[in-house]
Structures are given as C-alpha cells and as structure tokens.
C-alpha cells in the first residue's frame, strides 16, 4: 500500500513538473547550493569508509546516503 502510494505520487509529481508550478529557488539563485561545502557527501570514499566503521560495530544499518541539491545545472 505504502509502495503503491509512493509510485503514484512519483508519477503525479512528474506530471506536475510540466505544469506551471514555478520553482521557488531560481536556477540563477543556486550559488550557495552549488558550493562544495553544501554537498552532504563531498568525500564519498571517506563517507563510505566511516559508514563501514559504524556498520561493523552497530546493529543498525541503512539509510545513510542520497543524491541531489547542488547546482541544478543541465
């Protein structure tokens, strides 16, 4: 049920991407977001290593990373 709702939401989102919902942060306003210090995972090799250090010693695992943000360039 949750899975189905998620996919319908995704399809709906992609449809609205074509409509006139204006992004409230314009492409030319993304200077800060494009700054490397605003990247959650700017050192991926180090990030993967620390994730491994913790996963090997803790019971918890998962949900450690993602993508997006940045310059939004095309």
């Amino acid at each position, binding site marked *: *049920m*949750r*899975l*189905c709702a*998620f*996919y*319908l939401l*995704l*399809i709906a*989102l*992609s*449809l*609205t*991407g*074509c409509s006139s*919902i*204006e*992004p*409230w*942060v314009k*492409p030319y*306003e*993304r*200077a*800060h*977001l494009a*700054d490397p*210090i*605003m990247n*959650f995972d700017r*050192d*991926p*090799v*180090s990030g*993967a*290593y*620390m994730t491994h*250090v*913790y996963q090997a*010693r*803790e*019971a*918890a*695992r*998962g*949900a*450690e*990373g*993602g*993508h*997006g*943000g940045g*310059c*939004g*360039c*095309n």
Partner: protein
Amino acid sequence: MAPRVGTVVAVGVTRHIPAWLVGTALLCCSLAVLAGVLPDDRADALYHSYDGGGVEITGPSLMVLKKLGQNVAVNGNYYVDSISSASIDVVTSGASAYSEDRIEFSGGVDYLHGNSIMSLSFTNSSEDDYEANTAGFGISMDMFGNMTTVSMGYSRGWDMVMNNLDSTFSRDADRQNYKLGLTQVVTKDMLLELNYEGITDEGFLNNPYRSVRYLDPGGDSYSYESEIYPNTRTSNAVAIRSIYYLPYRAAVSGEYRFFDDTWGIDAHNLKFVYTHPLQGGWVLEGNYRYYTQNAADFYSDLFPFQGAQNFLARDKELSTFSSHTIGFKLSYDFIKNGWRSIDKGKINLAWDHILFDYDDFRDLRVVTPAPGDEPLYSFSADVVQLYVSIWF
C-alpha cells in the same frame, strides 16, 4: 516492511492504473523536463586506520570515477582492511590474536538519460572465511525544476560464511536492500533529505566462532555454547537530514536516523557537522555523532542455563549500548588553478574519536566471584583518515 495484507492490496491497485495515464505522463514529460549532470571525473586515494578495543585495522581505499563520452560514467574502488585483532571477544575466549586481510573490489556504471541517472554496481569482498558479493541497481531523477531529486535502489547480496577451523563448513547468507530517497531544495540556503532503507537477510546470519555463556548449575562459574541466530532478519531504517548555508560561508548539517528490526533492536542516531572554510583554500570541519541501541530479543550477557532459548546471542554488536563520536577534519586545496589536466586537488586529514559504552555486555577479562558481576564493558577507538582527491 508492509504487512502481508497491504502488499496484496498494493499489487491489485497498480494493475488498474490505466494505460492512458501512463501515456499522458510520457507525452507531458517529454515537453518540459530538463537534463541532469554526471559528477566530475575524480580519483581518490585514502589511507584508513582504526585502533580501539584491542583491534587495529588499516588499509587503503582507492577510487576512480571517469566519464566515457557524454552520458556514461564508470567507477571502480579497491579497498583493503588489514586486521589485527585482540578484541575482547578474542581475548576472553582464550583464542590467540589473529590477523587477516579483507579485500574488496567494486565497480559501477552510471548512465545519464534526460534528467535521470541510472546506475549499476557490483561489489566483491573476500577474506579467509567470508565471501560477499553484491549487485545493485539504482535510479536518481531530478524533477520540479531540479528542486527535487528522487532516488530508488535495489541490491542483492550473496554471501558465503566459512570457518577457518573447519574446512568443510560453508553456509549461505543472502540479502536484499530496498532504498528510497528524496532530496528537496527548501530555500537557496537549505537542503532537506529523507531516506528509507529496508533490508532483509536470510541464511546463516551469525558468526561461526562466537559463543554465548551460561551459568553453571553451581552458580559460581559459567560455560560456553555456540550462538544460534534466527535465519531471517528484516530491518527498516528511516533518516532525515538537512544542511544549511551560513551567510559568512560555512555549512551546518544535522541528521537523525531511526532503525528497527525483527530481532527486537531499536536504534537512534543523531549527527551534527559544521564545515568552516578558512582563507587560502583550507577547510575545517567538526562533527559529533550520538548512537544508541537496545539489545536484540535473544541477546544476553549470561544465560541462566544451557540451551535456555531457541536463539542465543552474546555479540556486543547486538547488546544495549550507546556511543559518542567527536571528529575533526582538515582539508587543503593544493591545486587551486589547475595543473596540466588536473583541475583541482585536495588533501585531507580526519580524526574521529569514538567512545563505546555497553549497558549489558560485561568485560570478562575481569574475574569476579559470581558470574554476572563483571564490570560493564566500554572502550574508545581512534579512527584516522588521510586522503588525497584530484579532479580532472
């Protein structure tokens, strides 16, 4: 994971998504959606060192990421853990300290199409008594004028667990990971990210060398028996994190993750990172992480008698404990304006100090008259990383 009934309903509903809806989506999107960007080419060489609780692990991690043409990028990673272990488990079980190497290779391909990046990856990890293979697929899509990025991933693992003390011993452990992620630009200074990961394991999930202890009938000594774990495990993890740009050029981020699984473990962790660029290409970063978990249902430091439960565990990884990490990282841009074909270069040194405090795992190096009165175990570890990254 979703309860059985819900899953059946979900399948039923989806079969009825009309074809015209999908068709319209196809048409609509092809008119307005813009393209995404593959990450810049880079190479990283990292040296890592972990020292704590009688365990020393060092090794390299090398990675290369390169575009081939405009729409494809390939990446490869070589990683080694050289382990020298005289951990509390080793020391108290009477075994001698051991050394071993774990070598891991991974490779992947990213394919850019429109505003989506599709990825395939494969990893092989090999040590004397454990072989792990993982294959995964992921997709990441920018939408809403590149304000929102949605990602999904699925991976499968096939592991083989062996035993150095018994060459005939070989068991399988299989794994499936399901990932969903959403990154949202909130303001021109702030990003928000939500992640979910569900993992299911099946097979031989424990350690063939590890034992649990139980109280002897007399009550003043204890003996060991093999640990027995369930042969399935399902877990869910949900995380939220945010990063904020400070006006004087710095960034602060916070993250919270909640974890639970079918072994009865609940865990929470909280992490804060502050990144502060200094003059001349230097960046200083500090982080604090707090982690806490409660024990698995079948965990006990001392069972009341032999064969007390169907499932038995005394692995401190499944006990009730908390940890605090404080870490610092110093980076320097040593190539600022390019040198030959290298656009940028950075050298980094990071140090994290982790304190582990166990609430129901006892330090058996200390012998007490009555079992179960030993002091609770705690230790600290130092993790050091030295790495160089170049972009070309």
